[in-house]
């Protein structure tokens, strides 16, 4: 009988249900306020892509595939290549998304990822140039959500970083006589990752309570969302608080410190998974 009552309260009065847990400093799934859901990572499973990674934060599952193509550099940046991220929220990940062109959430997520790539300098675009004004790489980073349960941005950044670390590009030279590109598929090199940004998302409830890593239900009930992206030198790469209720400066500082700790956890996880994939090869 008690489970029926709690299910009723959860559906009829979801905010009260969550408040009753927050009063005891915990959440419905048993986590503490500052605890992330268990994060698992799987690298290199898609062999048609140059690099790939699949990340699961709790139930949220996001996959990233990196495809590289050759292109002409643009005339105003002749020594730079391109990195094109794209976030796709297909209807299979949740019933809230309808089939059709990318919705608002997918487009804002894509723009956020593009901004993080630019601001954190995860890959220097000059590294993607093969020959100035003649040939450069275009890296298409296609991020797809397979199961949506909140905290999309964190998962996207982790899977992007892991996929870029996994990606291998063949050596390309331009033949002096024919002026054509020659691709040597046997000589593959990893990309040079200059920065390791990791995102941490927070949700604000009722003016005072800040929880880390919100689920989809918590995201729909909270009054503000905040995402902080830090790199491995404890520098802030991006801060994203799209509206919502106002937050004091010290609360913001707490969130940033939590994000710094999360960066270390995730970096360790990525390194561990990469090492174990290398050893199993």
């Amino acid at each position, binding site marked *: 009988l008690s489970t029926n009552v709690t299910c009723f309260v959860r559906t009829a009065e979801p905010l009260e249900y969550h408040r009753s847990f927050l009063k005891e400093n915990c959440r419905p799934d048993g986590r503490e306020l500052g605890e992330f859901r268990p994060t698992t990572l799987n690298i290199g*499973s*898609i*062999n*048609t*892509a140059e690099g*790939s990674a699949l990340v699961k934060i709790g*139930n949220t*599952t996001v*996959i990233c*595939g*990196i*495809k590289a*193509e050759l292109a002409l550099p643009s005339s105003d940046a002749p020594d730079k290549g391109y990195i094109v991220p*794209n976030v796709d929220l*297909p*209807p*299979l*990940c*949740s*019933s809230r998304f*309808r*089939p059709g062109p990318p919705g608002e959430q997918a487009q804002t997520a894509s723009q956020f990822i593009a901004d993080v790539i630019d601001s954190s300098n995860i890959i220097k675009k000059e590294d993607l140039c093969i020959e100035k004004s003649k040939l450069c790489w275009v890296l*298409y980073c*296609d991020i*797809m959500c*397979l*199961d*949506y*349960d909140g905290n999309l941005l964190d998962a996207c950044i982790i899977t992007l970083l892991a996929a870029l670390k996994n990606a291998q590009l063949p050596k390309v030279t331009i033949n002096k006589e024919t002026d054509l590109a020659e691709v040597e598929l046997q000589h593959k090199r990893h990309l040079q990752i200059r920065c390791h940004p990791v995102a941490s998302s927070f949700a604000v409830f009722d003016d005072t309570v800040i929880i880390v890593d919100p689920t989809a239900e918590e995201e729909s009930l909270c009054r503000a969302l905040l995402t902080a992206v830090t790199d491995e030198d404890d520098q802030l790469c991006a801060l994203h608080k799209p509206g919502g209720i106002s937050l004091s400066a010290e609360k913001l500082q707490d969130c940033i410190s939590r994000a710094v700790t999360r960066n270390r956890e995730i970096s360790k996880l990525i390194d561990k998974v990469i090492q174990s994939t290398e050893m199993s090869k």
Partner: protein
Amino acid sequence: MAGLELLSDQGYRLDGRKASELRKVQARMGVFGQADGSAYMEQGNTKALAVVYGPHEVRGSRSKSLHDRAVINCQYSMATFSTAERKRRPHGDRKSSEMSLHLKQTFEAAVLTQLYPRSQIDIYVKILQSDGGNYSACVNAATLALVDAGIPMRDYVCACTAGFAEGTALADLCHAEETGGGTALSLALLPRSQSIALVQMDARLHQDHLDTLMEAAMEACKGLSKVLDSVVRQHLQEVSVLSRD
């Protein structure tokens, strides 16, 4: 034909299989939390995901709902990184629309839609890695996802491709064999009643060879149905152990 030899003299194919040998199949059910039913299927190097939502109320226009049965809505799409060349239009192009329609027609034959009038069942299939047999992997994954969602069906729907080379029928073609220029036949079968839900062939074939080709495809589908059945039983065992605790 010159170039790719689909069947060597010793009877081995391009990837070392024998003529009637299927690729390694790995499948898992109940992989996603949000969906009512989900399944992940690997047939060799082809990886497919199927997700089922429903039965639920018809979304969008009420006029689409049928008074005596459920509407099945299928969407087939390929991930942009699933093919060797990046796929620019993963959905909405003609091939995807054709595949979506085929999937819808296949499952309308198998699902007991009369039990859910005026509702809608959504089947979303995504190909994560493509190496031939896309339609078959989708159908098999969607069958498992429908079983995971608890939607009643007449029978399992198993699909497989078959080809023809050097007078022998080849079962379960990979990408190189499909595009090699020979015959490729796709078959979706309901194994217990041996009834064919869908058959499609795009190539020239002498009608004397059609019987051998169909036989090979049906044998392959029956083999696959045994694999799918064992996956379902194993999943049910795991789930019942968890719920007992």
